[in-house]
């Protein structure tokens, strides 16, 4: 038996486990909907639109976590040259783009009734949009370069540059004038939220983290399986 065929079994297992984990995350997401809409009080000044918060903030968390880990894995890849790190970085970037899409669509939908505008070109929103474009570019670059070592090296550099934007995005609400509210959970002092709202938010954070892990695991397994199939084709 070709050694590449022998590796396909574990790769498929990773894919199956990843799909199951992300499906569990989607069931959890349905639970978050029920909790947020049925069992969490409506904020007095913002009304029902405030409940977008339970999706927008955890999606932002998952996106920024994903892009930070792309950068860390990329640094480690350039140092250790381990293809697993490159595969993980690509999987994390892919999931990060999906979560960014949630963040960048729910944000304007929330902004319209509260700020009176869908979008404003302030530092937080503009940097977040740039980060999204940067990682779409990262994925386009990966699709365009066929040599695996070159692809991994080039994309690692872009991944590290993308990670450098993350702290600026988090701190932009302190550094620049902006309509965007300041952090209410990820800040040095205690979270400033009523307990029921904080509970729903923390559960949503957990669900979005499970979704991130499931998506990354599936993407990683798929990339591994595709590499092994390519090797088998080349050997044949």
């Amino acid at each position: 038996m070709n050694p590449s065929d022998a590796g396909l079994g574990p790769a498929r297992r990773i894919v199956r486990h990843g799909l199951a984990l992300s499906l569990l995350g989607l069931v959890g997401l349905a639970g978050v909907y029920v909790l947020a809409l049925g069992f969490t009080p409506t904020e007095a000044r913002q009304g029902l639109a405030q409940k977008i918060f339970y999706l927008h903030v955890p999606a932002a968390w998952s996106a920024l976590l994903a892009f930070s880990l792309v950068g860390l894995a990329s640094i480690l890849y350039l140092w250790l040259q381990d293809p697993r790190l490159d595969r993980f970085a690509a999987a994390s970037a892919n999931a990060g783009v999906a979560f960014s899409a949630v963040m960048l669509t729910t944000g304007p939908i929330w902004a319209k009734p509260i700020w009176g505008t869908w979008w404003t070109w302030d530092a937080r929103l503009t940097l977040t949009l740039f980060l999204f474009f940067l990682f779409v570019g990262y994925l386009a670059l990966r699709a365009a370069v066929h040599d695996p070592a070159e692809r991994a090296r080039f994309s690692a550099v872009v991944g590290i540059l993308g990670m450098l934007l993350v702290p600026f995005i988090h701190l932009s609400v302190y550094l620049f004038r902006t309509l965007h509210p300041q952090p209410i959970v990820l800040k040095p002092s205690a979270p400033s939220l009523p307990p029921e709202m904080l509970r729903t938010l923390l559960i949503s954070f957990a669900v979005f983290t499970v979704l991130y892990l499931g998506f990354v695991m599936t993407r990683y397994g798929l990339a591994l399986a595709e590499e092994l199939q390519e090797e088998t084709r080349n050997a044949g």
Partner: protein
Amino acid sequence: MLADPPSNGEYMIAAYLVTTVILVGYWLRLWQKARKV
């Protein structure tokens, strides 16, 4: 006395629908790819 909260439920529904479409759509795409390997 507190004023009634503003009625803007349609924005909330839109955001929940968009999130569902993106995340379930992403999962379905992965599932479709997984069937080919």
